[in-house]
Protein backbone atom coordinates (compact mmCIF):
# COMPACT_ATOMS: atom_id res chain seq x y z
CA UNK A 1 0.00 0.00 0.00
CA UNK A 2 1.57 3.23 -1.08
CA UNK A 3 -0.16 6.52 -0.59
CA UNK A 4 1.58 8.02 -3.63
CA UNK A 5 -0.10 5.46 -5.85
CA UNK A 6 -3.47 6.66 -4.62
CA UNK A 7 -2.70 10.35 -4.81
CA UNK A 8 -0.96 10.49 -8.17
CA UNK A 9 -0.16 13.87 -9.70
CA UNK A 10 -3.07 13.69 -12.14
CA UNK A 11 -5.53 12.85 -9.34
CA UNK A 12 -4.28 15.69 -7.13
CA UNK A 13 -4.47 18.08 -10.06
CA UNK A 14 -8.07 17.14 -10.87
CA UNK A 15 -8.94 17.16 -7.17
CA UNK A 16 -7.62 20.66 -6.66
CA UNK A 17 -8.61 22.12 -10.03
CA UNK A 18 -11.63 20.13 -11.13
CA UNK A 19 -12.67 20.53 -14.77
CA UNK A 20 -16.28 21.19 -15.74
CA UNK A 21 -17.34 21.93 -12.17
CA UNK A 22 -20.36 24.05 -13.01
CA UNK A 23 -23.83 23.73 -14.50
CA UNK A 24 -23.19 23.25 -18.20
CA UNK A 25 -25.31 25.33 -20.53
CA UNK A 26 -28.36 23.68 -22.00
CA UNK A 27 -28.23 20.53 -19.87
CA UNK A 28 -31.36 18.42 -20.28
CA UNK A 29 -30.70 15.76 -17.68
CA UNK A 30 -29.42 15.78 -14.14
CA UNK A 31 -29.08 13.46 -11.19
CA UNK A 32 -27.80 13.56 -7.64
CA UNK A 33 -25.45 11.16 -5.87
CA UNK A 34 -24.83 10.84 -2.17
CA UNK A 35 -22.57 8.76 -0.01
CA UNK A 36 -24.37 8.98 3.36
CA UNK A 37 -21.51 7.34 5.23
CA UNK A 38 -19.01 10.06 4.45
CA UNK A 39 -21.25 12.86 3.26
CA UNK A 40 -19.86 13.11 -0.28
CA UNK A 41 -22.39 14.74 -2.58
CA UNK A 42 -22.37 15.12 -6.33
CA UNK A 43 -24.76 16.46 -8.91
CA UNK A 44 -24.24 15.65 -12.59
CA UNK A 45 -25.59 17.84 -15.41
CA UNK A 46 -25.85 16.26 -18.79
CA UNK A 47 -26.72 17.42 -22.29
CA UNK A 48 -27.69 14.29 -24.13
CA UNK A 49 -28.79 14.70 -27.76
CA UNK A 50 -31.39 12.65 -29.64
CA UNK A 51 -28.75 10.16 -30.78
CA UNK A 52 -27.86 9.58 -27.12
CA UNK A 53 -24.54 11.29 -27.49
CA UNK A 54 -23.09 13.25 -24.57
CA UNK A 55 -22.85 16.74 -26.02
CA UNK A 56 -21.86 18.26 -22.72
CA UNK A 57 -21.41 17.11 -19.14
CA UNK A 58 -20.51 18.86 -15.91
CA UNK A 59 -20.83 18.37 -12.17
CA UNK A 60 -21.11 20.13 -8.87
CA UNK A 61 -20.52 18.80 -5.41
CA UNK A 62 -18.20 18.31 -2.53
CA UNK A 63 -16.14 15.44 -1.40
CA UNK A 64 -12.69 13.99 -1.02
CA UNK A 65 -9.91 14.39 -3.57
CA UNK A 66 -10.71 10.97 -5.04
CA UNK A 67 -14.39 11.67 -5.61
CA UNK A 68 -13.82 15.15 -7.05
CA UNK A 69 -10.94 13.98 -9.26
CA UNK A 70 -12.97 11.05 -10.51
CA UNK A 71 -15.94 13.31 -11.33
CA UNK A 72 -13.66 15.76 -13.10
CA UNK A 73 -11.90 13.04 -15.10
CA UNK A 74 -15.26 11.52 -15.96
CA UNK A 75 -16.57 14.75 -17.48
CA UNK A 76 -13.45 15.10 -19.63
CA UNK A 77 -13.55 11.48 -20.74
CA UNK A 78 -17.26 11.12 -21.43
CA UNK A 79 -17.83 14.37 -23.26
CA UNK A 80 -18.51 13.70 -26.94
CA UNK A 81 -19.03 9.95 -26.44
CA UNK A 82 -22.14 7.92 -27.22
CA UNK A 83 -23.97 6.88 -24.02
CA UNK A 84 -23.41 3.19 -24.79
CA UNK A 85 -19.69 3.78 -25.21
CA UNK A 86 -19.63 5.74 -21.96
CA UNK A 87 -21.30 2.82 -20.20
CA UNK A 88 -18.62 0.45 -21.50
CA UNK A 89 -15.92 2.83 -20.27
CA UNK A 90 -17.49 2.74 -16.81
CA UNK A 91 -17.45 -1.08 -16.86
CA UNK A 92 -13.72 -1.06 -17.62
CA UNK A 93 -13.18 1.62 -14.99
CA UNK A 94 -14.95 -0.40 -12.30
CA UNK A 95 -12.96 -3.48 -13.27
CA UNK A 96 -9.79 -1.50 -12.87
CA UNK A 97 -10.85 -0.25 -9.43
CA UNK A 98 -12.04 -3.60 -8.13
CA UNK A 99 -9.93 -6.18 -9.94
CA UNK A 100 -6.87 -4.10 -10.70
CA UNK A 101 -7.12 -4.84 -14.43
CA UNK A 102 -5.10 -2.60 -16.74
CA UNK A 103 -7.02 -0.02 -18.65
CA UNK A 104 -6.76 0.00 -22.41
CA UNK A 105 -10.00 1.17 -23.88
CA UNK A 106 -10.10 1.39 -27.67
CA UNK A 107 -12.58 4.22 -27.71
CA UNK A 108 -10.21 6.37 -25.66
CA UNK A 109 -7.03 8.11 -26.72
CA UNK A 110 -3.71 7.23 -25.12
CA UNK A 111 -3.93 10.36 -22.97
CA UNK A 112 -7.48 9.59 -21.86
CA UNK A 113 -6.48 6.05 -20.90
CA UNK A 114 -3.53 7.42 -18.92
CA UNK A 115 -5.72 9.93 -17.12
CA UNK A 116 -8.24 7.26 -16.16
CA UNK A 117 -5.40 5.00 -15.05
CA UNK A 118 -4.31 7.63 -12.53
CA UNK A 119 -7.17 6.38 -10.34
CA UNK A 120 -5.94 2.77 -10.42
CA UNK A 121 -4.38 3.20 -6.96
CA UNK A 122 -7.88 3.07 -5.50
CA UNK A 123 -7.71 -0.72 -5.95
CA UNK A 124 -5.48 -0.92 -2.87
CA UNK A 125 -7.96 1.09 -0.82
CA UNK A 126 -11.26 -0.80 -1.05
CA UNK A 127 -12.97 1.69 1.28
CA UNK A 128 -12.42 4.37 -1.35
CA UNK A 129 -13.95 2.59 -4.37
CA UNK A 130 -17.27 4.25 -3.56
CA UNK A 131 -15.61 7.67 -3.71
CA UNK A 132 -14.26 6.94 -7.16
CA UNK A 133 -17.49 5.58 -8.64
CA UNK A 134 -20.12 7.92 -7.15
CA UNK A 135 -20.07 10.49 -9.99
CA UNK A 136 -20.07 7.75 -12.64
CA UNK A 137 -23.15 6.03 -11.23
CA UNK A 138 -24.79 9.43 -10.95
CA UNK A 139 -24.04 10.06 -14.63
CA UNK A 140 -25.75 6.76 -15.57
CA UNK A 141 -28.78 7.74 -13.50
CA UNK A 142 -28.94 11.12 -15.22
CA UNK A 143 -28.67 9.58 -18.67
CA UNK A 144 -31.31 6.98 -17.95
CA UNK A 145 -33.62 9.61 -16.48
CA UNK A 146 -33.83 8.00 -13.05
CA UNK A 147 -35.08 10.46 -10.52
CA UNK A 148 -34.00 8.97 -7.22
CA UNK A 149 -30.67 9.99 -5.71
CA UNK A 150 -27.82 7.54 -6.22
CA UNK A 151 -26.84 6.19 -2.84
CA UNK A 152 -23.74 4.20 -2.11
CA UNK A 153 -25.43 2.60 0.91
CA UNK A 154 -28.62 0.67 0.37
Amino acid at each position, binding site marked *: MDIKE*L*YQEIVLDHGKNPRNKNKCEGFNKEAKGHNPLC*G*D*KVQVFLKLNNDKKVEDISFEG*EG*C*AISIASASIMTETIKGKEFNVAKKILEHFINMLKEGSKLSINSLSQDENTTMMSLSGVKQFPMRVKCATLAWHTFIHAAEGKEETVKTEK
Partner: protein
Amino acid sequence: MDIKSIKSQFPIFKNKFNGKPLIYLDNANSSQKPKNVIDRISKFYSKEFSNIGRSVHTLAVTATNRFEESRDLMKKYINAKSREEIIFTKNATEAINLVASTYGDKFINRGDEILITELEHHANYVPWHFLRQKKGAIIKFAKCNDRGEVDIDEIKKLINNKTKIIAITHLSNVTGVIMPIKKIVDLASEKKIPVLVDGCQGAPHLKLDMQELGCDFYAISCHKMYGPTGVGVLYAKKKWLDVLPPYQGGGGMIEEVKKESITFPGSPTKYEAGTLQTAEVVGFSESLKFIEDVGIKNIMQHEKEILEYGLEEIKKNNSVRIIGDPKHRGSIISFTIKGIHPHDIATILDEDGVAIRAGHHCCQILHEKMGISASARASLGIYNSKDDIDALSSAIKKCNKVFNT
Protein backbone atom coordinates in the same frame (compact mmCIF):
# COMPACT_ATOMS: atom_id res chain seq x y z
CA MET B 1 0.94 6.20 35.96
CA ASP B 2 2.55 3.46 33.91
CA ILE B 3 0.74 3.79 30.59
CA LYS B 4 3.06 1.27 28.91
CA SER B 5 2.01 -1.39 31.37
CA ILE B 6 -1.67 -0.48 30.95
CA LYS B 7 -1.32 -0.57 27.16
CA SER B 8 0.35 -3.99 27.36
CA GLN B 9 -2.94 -5.36 28.69
CA PHE B 10 -4.48 -4.76 25.25
CA PRO B 11 -3.51 -7.57 22.85
CA ILE B 12 -4.42 -5.55 19.73
CA PHE B 13 -1.33 -3.40 20.19
CA LYS B 14 0.90 -6.41 19.70
CA ASN B 15 -0.09 -6.43 16.02
CA LYS B 16 1.22 -4.29 13.23
CA PHE B 17 -1.05 -2.62 10.72
CA ASN B 18 0.29 -1.67 7.31
CA GLY B 19 3.63 -2.71 8.76
CA LYS B 20 3.37 -0.07 11.49
CA PRO B 21 2.50 -0.18 15.19
CA LEU B 22 -1.07 0.85 15.86
CA ILE B 23 -1.68 4.42 16.97
CA TYR B 24 -5.32 4.10 17.94
CA LEU B 25 -7.07 7.46 18.12
CA ASP B 26 -10.62 6.37 17.32
CA ASN B 27 -11.79 5.75 20.88
CA ALA B 28 -14.90 7.90 20.62
CA ASN B 29 -16.02 5.43 17.98
CA SER B 30 -15.07 2.37 20.01
CA SER B 31 -12.28 1.48 22.37
CA GLN B 32 -9.96 -1.52 22.28
CA LYS B 33 -10.40 -4.39 24.75
CA PRO B 34 -8.05 -5.52 27.52
CA LYS B 35 -7.09 -9.18 27.66
CA ASN B 36 -9.16 -9.78 30.79
CA VAL B 37 -12.32 -8.82 28.95
CA ILE B 38 -11.52 -11.03 25.97
CA ASP B 39 -10.55 -13.95 28.22
CA ARG B 40 -13.62 -13.53 30.37
CA ILE B 41 -15.93 -14.06 27.40
CA SER B 42 -13.98 -17.13 26.36
CA LYS B 43 -14.02 -18.52 29.92
CA PHE B 44 -17.74 -17.90 30.23
CA TYR B 45 -18.45 -19.86 27.06
CA SER B 46 -15.98 -22.59 27.98
CA LYS B 47 -17.01 -23.14 31.59
CA GLU B 48 -20.11 -21.28 32.66
CA PHE B 49 -22.44 -20.77 29.75
CA SER B 50 -26.14 -21.30 29.89
CA ASN B 51 -29.10 -19.09 29.24
CA ILE B 52 -29.94 -16.99 32.26
CA GLY B 53 -32.98 -16.44 34.43
CA ARG B 54 -34.98 -19.42 33.23
CA SER B 55 -33.67 -22.89 34.07
CA VAL B 56 -32.84 -24.21 37.52
CA HIS B 57 -29.83 -26.36 36.67
CA THR B 58 -26.43 -25.51 38.11
CA LEU B 59 -25.09 -23.87 34.98
CA ALA B 60 -28.15 -21.65 34.64
CA VAL B 61 -27.76 -20.49 38.22
CA THR B 62 -24.06 -19.76 37.74
CA ALA B 63 -24.61 -17.91 34.48
CA THR B 64 -27.44 -15.89 36.00
CA ASN B 65 -25.29 -14.95 38.95
CA ARG B 66 -22.40 -13.84 36.75
CA PHE B 67 -24.76 -11.76 34.63
CA GLU B 68 -26.36 -10.12 37.63
CA GLU B 69 -22.95 -9.42 39.17
CA SER B 70 -22.28 -7.24 36.16
CA ARG B 71 -25.45 -5.30 36.94
CA ASP B 72 -24.34 -4.86 40.55
CA LEU B 73 -20.94 -3.61 39.47
CA MET B 74 -22.54 -1.10 37.12
CA LYS B 75 -24.92 0.03 39.83
CA LYS B 76 -21.98 0.65 42.11
CA TYR B 77 -19.86 2.24 39.40
CA ILE B 78 -22.38 4.93 38.55
CA ASN B 79 -23.81 5.14 42.07
CA ALA B 80 -27.38 4.25 41.17
CA LYS B 81 -29.77 3.86 44.08
CA SER B 82 -30.77 0.32 43.24
CA ARG B 83 -29.90 -2.49 40.84
CA GLU B 84 -33.39 -2.23 39.35
CA GLU B 85 -32.29 1.05 37.82
CA ILE B 86 -29.73 -0.67 35.57
CA ILE B 87 -31.18 -2.05 32.33
CA PHE B 88 -29.01 -3.88 29.83
CA THR B 89 -29.64 -2.99 26.20
CA LYS B 90 -27.81 -3.89 23.02
CA ASN B 91 -26.24 -0.42 22.87
CA ALA B 92 -26.74 3.19 23.95
CA THR B 93 -28.85 3.76 20.84
CA GLU B 94 -31.33 1.18 22.09
CA ALA B 95 -31.25 2.76 25.55
CA ILE B 96 -32.31 6.12 24.10
CA ASN B 97 -34.90 4.48 21.84
CA LEU B 98 -36.30 2.70 24.89
CA VAL B 99 -36.91 6.02 26.65
CA ALA B 100 -38.19 7.82 23.54
CA SER B 101 -40.60 4.98 22.91
CA THR B 102 -41.91 4.27 26.41
CA TYR B 103 -41.79 7.76 27.87
CA GLY B 104 -43.04 9.11 24.56
CA ASP B 105 -45.98 6.71 24.49
CA LYS B 106 -47.09 7.62 27.95
CA PHE B 107 -46.26 11.27 28.40
CA ILE B 108 -45.80 13.00 25.05
CA ASN B 109 -48.74 14.26 23.02
CA ARG B 110 -49.37 16.49 20.03
CA GLY B 111 -47.74 19.88 20.44
CA ASP B 112 -45.52 18.79 23.33
CA GLU B 113 -41.89 19.77 23.08
CA ILE B 114 -38.72 17.71 23.24
CA LEU B 115 -35.65 19.80 23.94
CA ILE B 116 -32.35 18.63 22.48
CA THR B 117 -29.25 20.50 21.26
CA GLU B 118 -27.40 21.04 18.01
CA LEU B 119 -24.56 18.97 19.47
CA GLU B 120 -26.49 15.72 19.53
CA HIS B 121 -25.36 12.50 17.91
CA HIS B 122 -27.98 11.09 15.54
CA ALA B 123 -28.73 8.50 18.24
CA ASN B 124 -30.07 11.30 20.42
CA TYR B 125 -32.08 12.91 17.65
CA VAL B 126 -33.52 10.21 15.36
CA PRO B 127 -35.46 8.40 18.16
CA TRP B 128 -37.08 11.76 19.06
CA HIS B 129 -37.76 12.38 15.39
CA PHE B 130 -39.74 9.12 15.28
CA LEU B 131 -41.72 10.38 18.23
CA ARG B 132 -42.26 13.70 16.49
CA GLN B 133 -43.71 11.84 13.53
CA LYS B 134 -45.79 9.47 15.60
CA LYS B 135 -47.19 11.91 18.14
CA GLY B 136 -46.98 15.27 16.42
CA ALA B 137 -44.50 16.49 19.01
CA ILE B 138 -42.07 19.35 18.39
CA ILE B 139 -38.29 19.11 18.68
CA LYS B 140 -36.49 22.25 19.82
CA PHE B 141 -32.74 22.56 19.26
CA ALA B 142 -30.71 24.57 21.76
CA LYS B 143 -28.09 26.47 19.75
CA CYS B 144 -24.43 25.64 19.77
CA ASN B 145 -22.00 28.61 19.81
CA ASP B 146 -18.74 29.09 17.88
CA ARG B 147 -16.79 27.51 20.73
CA GLY B 148 -18.72 24.30 20.21
CA GLU B 149 -20.65 24.67 23.46
CA VAL B 150 -24.34 24.98 24.21
CA ASP B 151 -24.74 27.85 26.62
CA ILE B 152 -27.05 27.03 29.49
CA ASP B 153 -29.04 30.21 28.71
CA GLU B 154 -29.87 28.76 25.29
CA ILE B 155 -31.45 25.81 27.07
CA LYS B 156 -33.18 28.02 29.61
CA LYS B 157 -34.68 30.09 26.81
CA LEU B 158 -36.36 27.07 25.27
CA ILE B 159 -37.84 25.55 28.41
CA ASN B 160 -41.55 26.22 28.74
CA ASN B 161 -44.71 24.55 29.95
CA LYS B 162 -44.84 22.32 26.87
CA THR B 163 -41.33 20.92 27.39
CA LYS B 164 -41.76 17.26 28.27
CA ILE B 165 -38.17 16.02 28.23
CA ILE B 166 -34.66 17.37 27.80
CA ALA B 167 -32.23 15.04 26.01
CA ILE B 168 -28.63 16.15 25.96
CA THR B 169 -25.12 14.83 25.50
CA HIS B 170 -22.72 14.67 28.43
CA LEU B 171 -19.63 15.08 26.27
CA SER B 172 -19.89 16.03 22.59
CA ASN B 173 -18.34 13.48 20.26
CA VAL B 174 -17.31 16.31 17.91
CA THR B 175 -16.34 19.40 19.89
CA GLY B 176 -15.49 17.50 23.07
CA VAL B 177 -17.44 19.97 25.23
CA ILE B 178 -18.42 18.64 28.64
CA MET B 179 -21.93 19.88 29.32
CA PRO B 180 -22.93 21.16 32.78
CA ILE B 181 -25.49 18.39 33.32
CA LYS B 182 -26.10 19.15 36.98
CA LYS B 183 -27.02 22.76 36.22
CA ILE B 184 -29.31 21.65 33.42
CA VAL B 185 -30.98 19.12 35.73
CA ASP B 186 -31.47 21.85 38.36
CA LEU B 187 -33.05 24.06 35.73
CA ALA B 188 -35.29 21.27 34.48
CA SER B 189 -36.38 20.11 37.91
CA GLU B 190 -37.85 23.54 38.66
CA LYS B 191 -40.44 22.61 36.06
CA LYS B 192 -40.36 18.88 36.83
CA ILE B 193 -38.98 18.05 33.36
CA PRO B 194 -37.01 14.81 33.19
CA VAL B 195 -33.50 14.91 31.70
CA LEU B 196 -31.99 12.17 29.58
CA VAL B 197 -28.22 12.24 29.19
CA ASP B 198 -26.49 10.64 26.24
CA GLY B 199 -23.49 9.38 28.14
CA CYS B 200 -21.71 7.56 25.31
CA GLN B 201 -18.66 9.81 25.57
CA GLY B 202 -19.21 10.76 29.19
CA ALA B 203 -19.14 7.31 30.72
CA PRO B 204 -15.66 6.26 29.51
CA HIS B 205 -14.00 9.55 30.41
CA LEU B 206 -15.76 11.15 33.37
CA LYS B 207 -16.51 10.20 36.94
CA LEU B 208 -20.14 9.22 37.09
CA ASP B 209 -22.36 9.63 40.09
CA MET B 210 -26.06 9.49 39.32
CA GLN B 211 -26.98 10.96 42.71
CA GLU B 212 -24.75 13.93 42.09
CA LEU B 213 -25.80 14.43 38.44
CA GLY B 214 -29.45 13.96 39.32
CA CYS B 215 -30.55 13.13 35.78
CA ASP B 216 -33.53 10.85 35.16
CA PHE B 217 -32.00 8.73 32.40
CA TYR B 218 -28.40 8.07 31.43
CA ALA B 219 -27.47 6.05 28.31
CA ILE B 220 -24.16 4.19 28.25
CA SER B 221 -22.24 2.49 25.46
CA CYS B 222 -20.17 -0.30 27.01
CA HIS B 223 -17.97 -0.95 23.98
CA LYS B 224 -16.57 2.56 24.37
CA MET B 225 -15.63 1.63 27.97
CA TYR B 226 -13.13 -1.07 26.95
CA GLY B 227 -16.03 -3.52 26.95
CA PRO B 228 -17.57 -5.88 24.41
CA THR B 229 -19.82 -4.72 21.59
CA GLY B 230 -23.51 -5.51 21.90
CA VAL B 231 -23.86 -4.10 25.40
CA GLY B 232 -25.42 -0.83 26.40
CA VAL B 233 -26.88 0.31 29.68
CA LEU B 234 -29.83 2.48 30.44
CA TYR B 235 -29.79 3.97 33.89
CA ALA B 236 -33.26 5.23 34.79
CA LYS B 237 -34.65 6.50 38.06
CA LYS B 238 -36.90 3.90 39.57
CA LYS B 239 -39.84 6.29 39.75
CA TRP B 240 -39.91 6.27 35.93
CA LEU B 241 -39.42 2.55 35.54
CA ASP B 242 -42.38 1.95 37.82
CA VAL B 243 -44.74 3.92 35.61
CA LEU B 244 -43.38 3.49 32.09
CA PRO B 245 -44.75 0.66 29.94
CA PRO B 246 -42.55 -2.23 28.76
CA TYR B 247 -40.46 -1.64 25.61
CA GLN B 248 -40.16 -4.84 23.58
CA GLY B 249 -42.40 -7.80 24.22
CA GLY B 250 -41.23 -11.40 24.40
CA GLY B 251 -39.89 -14.11 26.63
CA GLY B 252 -38.39 -13.30 30.01
CA MET B 253 -40.18 -9.99 30.48
CA ILE B 254 -43.60 -11.31 31.54
CA GLU B 255 -45.21 -12.08 34.88
CA GLU B 256 -48.30 -13.98 33.82
CA VAL B 257 -49.60 -14.67 30.33
CA LYS B 258 -53.26 -15.47 29.68
CA LYS B 259 -55.31 -15.44 26.53
CA GLU B 260 -57.13 -12.37 27.72
CA SER B 261 -54.38 -10.44 29.40
CA ILE B 262 -50.69 -10.29 30.28
CA THR B 263 -49.04 -8.85 33.34
CA PHE B 264 -45.45 -7.72 33.65
CA PRO B 265 -42.84 -7.79 36.40
CA GLY B 266 -40.89 -4.77 37.56
CA SER B 267 -37.62 -3.40 36.24
CA PRO B 268 -35.15 -4.52 34.99
CA THR B 269 -36.96 -7.71 33.89
CA LYS B 270 -39.75 -5.75 32.24
CA TYR B 271 -37.25 -4.13 29.90
CA GLU B 272 -35.04 -7.09 29.06
CA ALA B 273 -37.05 -9.15 26.60
CA GLY B 274 -35.63 -12.27 24.99
CA THR B 275 -32.20 -13.79 25.43
CA LEU B 276 -29.67 -11.07 26.06
CA GLN B 277 -26.03 -10.79 25.06
CA THR B 278 -25.13 -12.84 28.12
CA ALA B 279 -21.42 -13.46 27.54
CA GLU B 280 -20.82 -9.85 26.60
CA VAL B 281 -22.53 -8.53 29.71
CA VAL B 282 -20.42 -10.91 31.82
CA GLY B 283 -17.32 -9.79 29.89
CA PHE B 284 -18.25 -6.20 30.59
CA SER B 285 -17.79 -6.74 34.31
CA GLU B 286 -14.06 -7.09 33.56
CA SER B 287 -14.09 -3.72 31.76
CA LEU B 288 -15.48 -2.08 34.87
CA LYS B 289 -12.88 -3.83 37.00
CA PHE B 290 -10.20 -2.62 34.59
CA ILE B 291 -11.43 0.97 34.85
CA GLU B 292 -11.65 0.74 38.63
CA ASP B 293 -8.16 -0.75 38.84
CA VAL B 294 -6.71 2.12 36.85
CA GLY B 295 -9.01 4.57 38.61
CA ILE B 296 -11.33 6.94 36.77
CA LYS B 297 -9.60 9.94 38.34
CA ASN B 298 -6.28 8.71 36.97
CA ILE B 299 -7.88 8.14 33.58
CA MET B 300 -9.27 11.68 33.61
CA GLN B 301 -5.97 13.16 34.67
CA HIS B 302 -3.99 11.25 32.06
CA GLU B 303 -6.40 11.99 29.23
CA LYS B 304 -6.46 15.67 30.17
CA GLU B 305 -2.70 15.80 29.94
CA ILE B 306 -2.64 14.11 26.53
CA LEU B 307 -5.53 16.23 25.28
CA GLU B 308 -3.81 19.47 26.25
CA TYR B 309 -0.58 18.32 24.67
CA GLY B 310 -2.48 17.28 21.54
CA LEU B 311 -4.27 20.62 21.19
CA GLU B 312 -1.01 22.46 21.68
CA GLU B 313 0.89 20.37 19.14
CA ILE B 314 -1.79 20.36 16.48
CA LYS B 315 -2.34 24.11 16.78
CA LYS B 316 1.29 24.60 15.76
CA ASN B 317 0.32 23.54 12.25
CA ASN B 318 -1.19 26.61 10.59
CA SER B 319 -3.14 24.62 8.04
CA VAL B 320 -5.17 22.91 10.77
CA ARG B 321 -8.46 24.24 12.10
CA ILE B 322 -9.63 22.66 15.33
CA ILE B 323 -13.41 22.37 15.60
CA GLY B 324 -14.67 24.22 18.64
CA ASP B 325 -12.84 25.70 21.58
CA PRO B 326 -14.94 24.75 24.59
CA LYS B 327 -13.86 25.80 28.08
CA HIS B 328 -14.42 22.30 29.39
CA ARG B 329 -13.23 19.76 26.85
CA GLY B 330 -12.70 16.06 27.16
CA SER B 331 -10.84 13.45 25.09
CA ILE B 332 -11.74 14.71 21.62
CA ILE B 333 -9.99 16.79 18.96
CA SER B 334 -11.91 17.25 15.72
CA PHE B 335 -10.14 19.15 12.99
CA THR B 336 -9.91 20.01 9.33
CA ILE B 337 -6.84 20.71 7.22
CA LYS B 338 -7.04 23.49 4.66
CA GLY B 339 -7.41 22.09 1.16
CA ILE B 340 -7.57 18.43 2.21
CA HIS B 341 -10.82 16.53 2.66
CA PRO B 342 -11.09 14.59 5.96
CA HIS B 343 -11.34 11.27 4.11
CA ASP B 344 -8.07 11.90 2.40
CA ILE B 345 -6.58 12.82 5.79
CA ALA B 346 -7.81 9.55 7.30
CA THR B 347 -6.39 7.50 4.44
CA ILE B 348 -2.98 9.18 4.61
CA LEU B 349 -2.85 8.85 8.43
CA ASP B 350 -3.80 5.21 8.14
CA GLU B 351 -0.72 4.53 6.07
CA ASP B 352 1.31 5.48 9.16
CA GLY B 353 -0.81 3.26 11.40
CA VAL B 354 -2.67 6.26 12.82
CA ALA B 355 -6.35 5.32 13.12
CA ILE B 356 -8.73 8.27 13.31
CA ARG B 357 -12.27 8.82 12.11
CA ALA B 358 -13.34 11.03 9.24
CA GLY B 359 -16.84 12.07 8.34
CA HIS B 360 -19.69 13.78 10.12
CA HIS B 361 -19.44 11.43 13.13
CA CYS B 362 -23.24 11.04 13.10
CA CYS B 363 -23.58 14.77 13.79
CA GLN B 364 -24.72 16.26 10.51
CA ILE B 365 -26.59 19.12 12.15
CA LEU B 366 -23.51 20.22 14.08
CA HIS B 367 -21.27 19.99 11.02
CA GLU B 368 -23.69 22.07 9.00
CA LYS B 369 -23.71 24.61 11.80
CA MET B 370 -19.91 24.73 11.69
CA GLY B 371 -20.08 25.24 7.93
CA ILE B 372 -18.39 21.97 7.01
CA SER B 373 -19.63 18.65 5.69
CA ALA B 374 -17.04 16.51 7.45
CA SER B 375 -14.14 16.62 9.85
CA ALA B 376 -11.28 14.43 11.00
CA ARG B 377 -11.39 13.35 14.63
CA ALA B 378 -8.71 12.09 16.98
CA SER B 379 -10.19 10.73 20.21
CA LEU B 380 -8.30 9.48 23.22
CA GLY B 381 -8.27 6.46 25.45
CA ILE B 382 -6.25 5.47 28.50
CA TYR B 383 -3.53 3.78 26.39
CA ASN B 384 -2.69 6.89 24.37
CA SER B 385 0.53 8.73 25.08
CA LYS B 386 2.32 11.86 23.95
CA ASP B 387 4.11 9.64 21.42
CA ASP B 388 0.76 8.98 19.78
CA ILE B 389 0.17 12.71 19.49
CA ASP B 390 3.62 13.14 17.95
CA ALA B 391 2.78 10.42 15.43
CA LEU B 392 -0.49 12.21 14.67
CA SER B 393 1.28 15.56 14.21
CA SER B 394 3.85 14.14 11.85
CA ALA B 395 1.18 12.23 9.89
CA ILE B 396 -0.71 15.53 9.51
CA LYS B 397 2.47 17.07 8.12
CA LYS B 398 2.60 14.20 5.67
CA CYS B 399 -0.90 15.18 4.48
CA ASN B 400 0.42 18.68 3.83
CA LYS B 401 3.27 17.16 1.87
CA VAL B 402 1.16 14.79 -0.24
CA PHE B 403 -1.27 17.56 -1.08
CA ASN B 404 1.41 20.22 -1.32
CA THR B 405 -0.49 22.54 1.03
